[in-house]
């Protein structure tokens, strides 16, 4: 059995009170409850405070470039689709720098679970607006307030028919853990947007601000109805829904590749005798 101590990593360098601590705790607990050992999955992270996440755990890790978590995660998943692949990114990382990759990962329905630590601000570079910052919010870099509209990642994902879309809140660890487990167990691509207070740079979207607004989606809500999901995704302001917002169980990218049916790409032999014969035959095609 896996226990929490198996996941003891380096000491985090996040600010005291940072929402990332709760996300880390919820994630470790989810893994223990799912009995997933550190070597059984890979985390791909980008750059930003969220990018440091896997260093504070123990697991296979690829901490790549800013914005490029999803392409790396896609490559890993295609090479070994028997392994759980989790991409961890921030809102600037995934919704700003890497926006194009998000669109196409959703289209592919590659079996990668994407956890976005969405604090609606740039933390690592000290307080500039992010794509999810609310319109009008003042920062040192946005002297007239944020002029662009706020990106709604949940609505965007549903519009693209993402196969799993959920929202969590770092202030509700138990709920977050449950949603993480659902995302991990989901077959295709899963987007989990996590509302995460930044205690240092975001003075608008604080713990209190979120607590007054978030509510658990009703039990009778049907996440498989796309239109009501889209309606749900547009709720923002006085009330912000958290939980599983949309599920569309469609075929994954990996399932559609014939030669991945019986084994992952890493288990395809490289240089056997049979392979040499194949190559000889292939060369004959040039005659």
């Amino acid at each position, binding site marked *: 059995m896996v226990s929490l101590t198996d996941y003891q990593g*380096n000491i985090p360098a996040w600010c005291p009170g940072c929402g990332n601590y709760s996300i880390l705790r919820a994630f470790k607990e989810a893994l223990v409850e799912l009995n997933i*050992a*550190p*070597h*059984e*999955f*890979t985390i*791909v992270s980008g*750059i930003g405070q969220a990018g*440091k996440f*896997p*260093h504070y755990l*123990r*697991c*296979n*890790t*690829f*901490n*790549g*470039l800013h914005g*490029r978590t*999803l*392409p*790396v*995660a*896609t*490559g*890993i*998943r*295609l*090479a*070994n689709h*028997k*392994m759980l692949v989790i991409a961890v990114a921030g809102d600037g990382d995934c919704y700003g720098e890497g926006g*194009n*990759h998000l*669109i*196409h990962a959703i289209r592919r329905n590659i079996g990668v679970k994407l956890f976005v630590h969405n604090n609606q601000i740039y933390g690592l570079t000290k307080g500039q607006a992010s794509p999810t910052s609310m319109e009008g919010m003042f920062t040192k870099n946005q002297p007239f307030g944020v002029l662009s509209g706020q990106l709604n990642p949940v609505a965007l994902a549903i519009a693209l028919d993402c196969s799993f879309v959920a929202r969590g809140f770092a202030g509700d660890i138990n709920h977050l853990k449950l949603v993480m487990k659902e995302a991990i167990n989901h077959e295709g691509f899963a987007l989990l947007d996590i509302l995460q207070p930044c205690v240092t740079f975001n003075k608008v979207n604080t713990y209190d601000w979120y607590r007054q607004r978030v509510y658990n989606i009703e039990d009778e809500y049907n996440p498989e109805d796309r239109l009501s999901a889209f309606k749900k995704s547009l709720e923002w302001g006085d009330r912000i829904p958290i939980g599983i917002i949309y599920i569309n169980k469609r075929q994954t990218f990996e399932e559609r*590749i*014939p*030669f*991945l049916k019986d084994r992952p*790409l*890493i288990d*395809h032999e*490289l*240089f056997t005798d049979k392979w*040499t014969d*194949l*190559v*000889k035959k*292939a*060369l004959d095609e*040039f*005659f």
Partner: protein
Amino acid sequence: MDYTIKIGGEAGQGIQTIGDSLAKVFSLFGYYVFTHQEYESRIRGGHNFYQIRFSNRPMAASKSIIDILVCLDKESTKVHKDELSQYGMAVYDLKLTKESINDERFLNIPLLDMAEKFGKNKIMVNTVAIGAVLGMLNFPQEIFLSILQKTLGKKGDEVVQLNINSFVAGYEFAKKECLRCAFTITSHGKPKMLIGVNESIGMGAITSGCKFYSAYPMTPSTGIMLFLASKAEKYNILVEQAEDEIAAINMAIGASFAGVRSMTGTSGGGFALMVEGLSLAAMTETPIVIALAQRPAPATGLPTKTEQADLLFAIHAGHGEFPRVIFAPGSPDQAFYLTNKAFDISQKYQIPVFILTDQYLSDSQWTIDEIDIKGYKHTQYRIRGEKLESIREYKRHLFTENGVSVFGIPGTSTRLIVTDSDEHDEEGHITEDPDIRTKMVNKRFHRKWPSIKSEMGPPYFYGDNDPDIVIVGWGSTYGVIKDSIDILSKNKKIAMMHFSELYPLPDAEDYIKILKKAKKTICVENNASGQFARLIKTETGFEFNSAINRYDGRPFYSDLLARSINGIID
């Protein structure tokens, strides 16, 4: 015997079909064949051509003089007229060119009418044209007829028969009407393989165990992806068309980290987007092979033309300092061999390796007798499972004597594989410690570099053993320089020196000695600033005393290059 056929016309007229079929016929007959193409960046219209040279003697480039010109449009009858050799002949169809030509070298053949009459379809005009060319040459019909049967058999007897009728009609017409035709078909060898350089790189990748190729379509590199996609099912190679070049290289890096040999391919502008990813591969010591097919730039440049102007870009691309290897093959067999070597070296030293080509080379086709994969390296450097488990304290970036650390495959044992684009410690975790930083730079670069350098093969030397004149080139100019040497060596002590293993430069002692001894050293490059000459000067101090540079987007032709060389040395 050494003939050149040129087929000119608009995009979409089937120039490629005619050219490919004729090239195939000549190679199966046992001739040496070289083809190259020039096309515009459009799907219909414009002016394109396909040039085929065939001979019973080995050769490796195009000439500027043509013997048979097939004009599918009016433009061809004008722009290529002066390229006809003394006994050259051109065919055209009045219905296509709309202008009759009063020149005894031009033969009007009703290609369209015959296509409709004998093939019951205008589309058969290509088959009629192939027939006409072979008829003018008085070339045996059997090979083409068997190709028709092989490629069209699936479509039913009627389709085959209509094609045969069209071919024979074109053949007989040209044979009867071309009174000036005096081509002689001489003896030939055994059937040869006809292979393009993009295909050769693709096949080289497959035979080197590549399992993952992600790229974004970009001329002239797309052919590699198309070839691999056509072989995906057969060889279980996963080809993914990424959303952009940034995704392409990052996916390939991800797949490589996870345990499969992976590759990407692009051209200048696309590679500009990949540069950050290149640096990522270097920092995380993740092996990757990059095919970089050059075309004229800056920016979009001449998208379908040729140039060798990204050499120094490839050498210097990427922020920070890290090792890399650059190969620039000059022929399909070199491309095949160097692709294997690229995979081996990138895996062995966990570094990025480039295969640098250009449009002229990528789209060219050559005959070769056979490809022998026996001497190729097929070493599996990655470890997994029990073997990985048996390493007590596994560290992905362990400091070692030669800088290379064991690279385990994640998920196959309980050992964790950790890496970071940030500077990292031996385990792969983020650090800012100055001592670790220095040690890591040494590990990644200084410790690996001497062994990497020792892997580089010497330049190819051809011609006089004690030359007065040395013609130096790299990559795609291999064939054209070799042909020029054949033209010039009759009365001169001349030799060629061709580099296909470019960076780091192979040990300089031997070749610099030859260069220093020669009276005239000429560096031939398809670029404006002489990038290779600069590289040689920077790395060895040697300066060539002349240069021939072409940068109009067009390749060198052997007869013209020989003339330029003559102009310098006489």
